[in-house]
């Protein structure tokens, strides 16, 4: 089934010590099922803010605009309702929840997202299968959510959730950061497998082109200063590889200046 995610003129701000700061300054984007969009941009351009705003992190305040998933405005929903509507955010820094086992967490999440508890037999099979394909140690399931996980383990756990929760749209926030080549390959293969099975749309937020070798984008966007400023095909990524982000930055700033 075809689904559509439409972001319309989205403005969002965050409270900082220096006062309120607008970070998203009119974002427009349409993603359909099966499409992979790469969102590339310099540090501090607001691309992670876009990811968290769509998922509903309370730190970010929406000032105006819409994010319609099949016509329903995600921005009016609580984070759990957005997940139930079919949105998934793989986080750059997944949070530790001590004392809550992965199995308990995954099963609770699956039950909530589906609106009913999964059949035990198939659930166990799915969980085992996905973990195996992500090269995750079976003992992983007994550990507390993200607690003491290495960077790579955290990312695999995010992709595991992506595979199991079967969203309509997945936002991958810097999923490639902190991974070595082998881990990057395993994680990327996981994303590709999940997409093959469920044909969801992907918004892949990344600073580097490295992950694009494994997860092929259909469309590449350049995000700078709170909005999309250029859109193209995969070749745009190659161009960025060559030239960097300097040309998209305002005069006098360098690509490593981080706002957030």
């Amino acid at each position, binding site marked *: 089934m075809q689904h559509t995610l439409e972001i319309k003129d989205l403005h969002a701000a965050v409270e900082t010590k220096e006062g309120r700061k607008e970070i998203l300054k009119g974002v427009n984007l349409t993603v359909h099922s099966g499409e992979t969009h790469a969102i590339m941009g310099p540090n501090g351009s607001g691309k992670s803010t876009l990811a968290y705003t769509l998922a509903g992190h309370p730190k970010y305040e929406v000032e105006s605009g819409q994010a319609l998933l099949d016509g329903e405005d995600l921005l009016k929903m609580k984070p*759990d309702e957005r997940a139930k509507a079919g949105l998934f955010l793989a986080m750059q820094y997944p949070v530790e929840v001590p004392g*809550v086992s992965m*199995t308990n967490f995954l099963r609770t*999440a699956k039950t909530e997202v589906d609106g009913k508890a999964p059949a035990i037999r198939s659930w166990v099979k799915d969980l085992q299968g996905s973990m195996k394909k992500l090269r995750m140690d079976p003992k992983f*399931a007994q550990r507390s959510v993200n607690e003491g996980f290495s960077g790579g383990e955290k990312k695999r756990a995010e992709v595991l*959730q992506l595979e199991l929760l079967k969203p309509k749209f997945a936002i991958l926030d810097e999923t490639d950061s902190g991974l070595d080549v082998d881990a990057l390959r395993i994680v990327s293969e996981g994303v590709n497998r999940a997409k093959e099975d469920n044909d969801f749309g992907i918004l892949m937020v990344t600073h580097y082109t490295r992950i694009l070798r494994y997860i092929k984008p259909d469309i590449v966007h350049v995000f700078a200063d709170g909005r999309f400023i250029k859109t193209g095909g995969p070749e745009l990524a190659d161009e960025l590889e060559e030239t960097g982000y300097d040309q998209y930055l305002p005069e006098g700033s360098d690509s490593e200046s981080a706002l957030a």
Partner: protein
Amino acid sequence: MAEKTTDSSASAAGTKQAADVEMSQYVADRERVNEDKIKQDDKIISEFGEYSYGWHDSDAAGEAAKKGISEEVVREISADKHEPQWMLDYRLAGYKAFLDKPMPDWGVDLKGFNAQDFKYYVKPLDKQAKSWDDLPPDIKNTYDRLGIPEAEKKRLVSGVAAQYESEVIYNSIREDLKAQGVIFLDTDAAVQQYPDLVKKYFTTVVPVDDNKFAGLNTAAWSGGSFVYVPKGVHVEIPLQAYFRINTPAMGQFERTLIIADEGSYVHYVEGCTAPIYSQDSLHAAVVEIVVEKNARVRYTTVQNWSNNVYNLVTQRAYVKEGGTMEWVDGNIGSKATMKYPACILAGPYAKAETMSIGFAGKGQYQDTGAKMIHLAPHTSSTIVAKSISKDAGRSAYRGLVKIVKGAEGAHSSVVCDALLVDDYSRSDTYPHVDVREDDVTMAHEATVSKVSEDQLFYLMSRGIEEKEAMGMIVRGFVEPISKLLPMEYALELNRLVELQMEGSVG
């Protein structure tokens, strides 16, 4: 952070298959447990309200009892129990210590506390019941609602002691344990039936004049459990005691004495509840435990007094060579609790552990902790203290680790974790350390955390509702303690924590 390789493909195919089998079994087991737990939780939650033990029975004995303590009252209690002179002497010495000792000026606020406000001796029945059916209907009904006879019938416990007001009204122990020489009866009966044993140990662990409230308990004690486990006997299933206050302004002063002889094991579990009244009640117990050579005792408390009960308890264990003492302490209820389970590690290689969880809600002050006194070489102690504070509740960890000169190779580890659910609550840590020996290892760790926005967001972004997400975080926080509890108590603890958390999500 370095990428840890968890790739199992490099290992032999056999290992891999074994791992798969292990995984599938593990997952299947967990699923079953989860399923059961969810069902049970739902059932329990649907059955109970806010403080679920707030009812009270009809109350002729309580109404007739008079308030206040004096030497005359102490003598009357002793006479009513037909006690030998030596016990009366202890009581009188206790009363003197109570008068002489100062009121603690630290810890919880005791300004509103007046010892003359309480009833010291309420005898609900003339004699102990032989069976639950012998009890007056409303008292039996109370225990049915608490699920005690049911647990006994299902053999979830090896023995049951039910204390109602001042008296143990029902006490049973499995026949096979009795045949092995295990003694489990109320302390009053033990004074009559085993005077030599009681005399040998009474006040040897908690002296008469240990503190004001230990003195008061020694003066006015009634009920409590006496447990003796003979050499080498393992009581595999817990002995369970249930303490219930029914009448308003009641003072409950049970006295418990547990002796685990060489190489034996016993787990004693106590639960406590009371009705909600506008007048305060007082629970001032003394628990003395003697752990003989290579014996092991675990003492578990799930205290859920209503918020009008002062809970001022002295608990201490004397641990001999190679012995192990474990205190598992859940303090959820009460108006104010002061309680610091202590272990005296008297013999080489003696070991002790205190795992505690305190919950301080509106109007509550939980001042709890642990004391570990290392007197011998190679003794080790572990303290894990967790607290949750919400709605301006206040919790404190107050602990003492003392290692004397000559206790070489002693080891101590203290971990205090406090979780604050809102901005109005308070948590304090008062760790006292007194080490007189060089050759020791010590570790201390204390954290205070808030339920973070990021944790809530993470769980919610996976479809989990805010309330459930908060519940998961808090359950996860108490999990290291709750997993030590017998299952029904673990469920109880989780449920209580969840009920207490209700309304805490803005």
